[in-house]
């Protein structure tokens, strides 16, 4: 009986396993092999040993793009989580009918193509005629050059990214709705303030959702590409003014692979990013053991 159940289970997951092997595992192994070669996608490659990895250590643009990506991740992940949580808490307090409407509204930007967001970035955050700086001007604030000042380009991209927090909002909202209301009632009877209820009940109870989005958002931030590429490196911006401030790791990897035809080097870069993501995720998992509260623990 158990054997038959196991066979049935494997049968059900077989499509996923086949897909994983063909579209993930095999390409990953091939890219690992290519990372030790000078493959350019066009000619026979030759084995270079660890040359690509050694070159990466000395490549200043690797350091620059990694630094840019890390700074961006450090800014965008907490910002996304904070804004999404605030919106989810607001939504959890509105009526059921209007909650559905607002959930839809907040989720809509999530399905907007990232390229469109990149182009919008240039229009909304334009330092001379952009809406954002015009709004700041109403309060007497001279807005920065979000799209032109290297110091403000990453904050600008973070700001733009906050436009599409809808997916995270939906996750937090589901988590908030699962918090038992009697906990809040008991705390209120004991005289707990709103902040104390948030700090002592809400946060621990939704910590698994927070932890999940922390990992997902971190990985997404380290792999950021579309918006920055569309805004500064894409065909519509071929004026050669691509700023180094938006040279994220994947953009440099793309340049190496498909503009300079260094596919072997780009494969080595991809593996470095894989290792970095694994290390960061492992640290996050380790730290989470003390901070994340699972029901039943």
């Amino acid at each position, binding site marked *: 009986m158990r054997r038959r159940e196991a066979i049935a289970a494997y049968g059900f997951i077989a499509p996923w396993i086949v897909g994983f092997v063909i579209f993930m595992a095999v390409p990953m192994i091939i890219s690992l092999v290519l990372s030790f070669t000078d493959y350019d996608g*066009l*000619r026979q490659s030759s084995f270079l040993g660890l040359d690509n990895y050694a070159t990466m250590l000395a490549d200043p643009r690797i350091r620059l793009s990694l630094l840019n990506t890390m700074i961006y991740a450090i800014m965008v992940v907490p910002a996304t989580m904070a804004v999404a949580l605030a919106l989810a808490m607001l939504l959890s307090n509105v009526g059921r009918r209007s909650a559905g409407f607002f959930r839809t509204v907040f989720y809509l930007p999530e399905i907007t193509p990232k390229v469109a967001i990149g182009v919008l970035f240039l229009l909304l955050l*334009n330092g001379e005629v952009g809406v954002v700086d015009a709004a700041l001007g109403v309060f007497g604030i001279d807005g920065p050059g979000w799209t032109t000042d290297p110091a403000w380009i990453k904050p600008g991209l973070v700001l733009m990214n906050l436009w599409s927090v809808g997916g995270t909002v939906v996750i937090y909202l589901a988590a908030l709705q699962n918090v038992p209301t009697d906990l809040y009632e008991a705390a209120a009877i004991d005289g707990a303030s709103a902040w104390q209820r948030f700090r002592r009940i809400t946060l621990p109870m939704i910590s698994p959702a927070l932890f999940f989005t922390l990992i997902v958002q971190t990985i997404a931030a380290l792999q950021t590409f579309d918006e920055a590429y569309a805004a500064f490196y894409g065909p519509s911006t071929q004026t*050669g003014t691509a*700023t180094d401030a938006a040279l994220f790791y994947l953009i440099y990897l793309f340049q190496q*692979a498909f*503009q300079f035809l260094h596919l072997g080097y780009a494969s080595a870069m991809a593996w470095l990013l894989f290792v970095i993501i694994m290390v960061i995720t492992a640290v996050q998992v380790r730290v989470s053991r003390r901070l994340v509260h699972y029901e039943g623990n």
Partner: protein
Amino acid sequence: MAVLAGCGGVGGGSGQNPAGGATLSTMGFGLVDEVAQVRVDLANKAIAPDVVQVGGSTFDAQQFLSAVASGTAPDLVFLDRQLVGTYASRGTLMPLGDCIARNGVDMSQYRDAAVQEVTLDRKVYGLPEFFNNRVVLMNGAALQAAGMTSADLSTKDWPALAAAAAKLTRTTPDGKLARIGFDPKIPEFLPLWAKANGVDMISADGRTANLDDPRLLEVLEFTLGLIQQQGGWGAFKAYRESFDFFGKENPLATDKLAAWPMEDFYLNQVANNSPQVQLLAAPFTDRRGAPIDLATGSAWAIPTGSKHPEQACTWIKTMSDAPTWIAAAQARAEKRRADGKAFTGIYTANRKADEKIFGELVRLEGQPVFESAVAAVLKAQDSAFTLPASPAGAEFRTAWQSAVTRVLEGRQPPAAALEQAQQEAQRALDSAPGR
């Protein structure tokens, strides 16, 4: 990978068509207008019953690499001439020597500068198509209001040009840019400014960078100064990005830009969207006053994996032949006439075609604005140069463009930026195939 290569942007397959002939595939070319349609029809007629099925979009390196790597290279590829050297040096494109000899392609009909762009190590790898010239375009109304003429904006006399730019620049009471006086269009047009100051940024064989030349430093310092005197890079770029460059509210029609070097296709844009604008044009000149013109464009090439190289050769020969261009120009002229708009010509890499197009088909009597603008482009065209084919063209371009951007953003002094660019570019050229 073969499956992925088949997705999007590739016209046709290599199967049989209903007429019993082969169907050739293309990459990088789309039937965007009547000029493309007429030429494709004629070229298909030349290889009937075989047919080239067109239906892609612009060249996509990722897609092309996937196709080549999976053994499903298209029969033809249409790409930026600056990329030809990169792919040719890796053996991906077929040298066209046999094709040219067998089909009797008259190479003298093509402009030398365009042929140079598709020639690597003395072998021709592509047949050139359009020829995009760069001239100085000017807002006649702005000049008139300032009591100036186009001669005041000559690129011959740099101090005078800087003074004229300052006079034409306008700001709002709160200090924001309201009109750019002169946009030098750097980093993009740095090779044009460099040539004007006597510098070739790369050697004729495309293998040696020359980015640390003191005359190039002088160019960068001057053009940087032009931008700084007009509000600095941040304000300048942000203001420029706010333009609706190709619409009715273009910066000439809205008086947001007084003068700038620009590709010739902008004349068509103005004729189409704002024919009332007082447009002036003049050749970009070197510091002795002689016209110079940075030309770019695309080319047709045949990948080494093409399954029908002979038909492909006949097809690209016809596409770039003078009679084909003339037929296409005729169609465009008729369409413009029917729309009541000026036909300002199409600029091709085929000298013979241009002679006929501009000698007979372009009729701008009674439209002095466009007549003189077209004359300026034609004058510039004879002094055109191109950046030579290079096996590391993309890396070379990235090196100097990044250097200029670092300077514009104030992150590096011009001399240090060019020094770094020289090292990066030469390293890439040294490690490129063929060394």
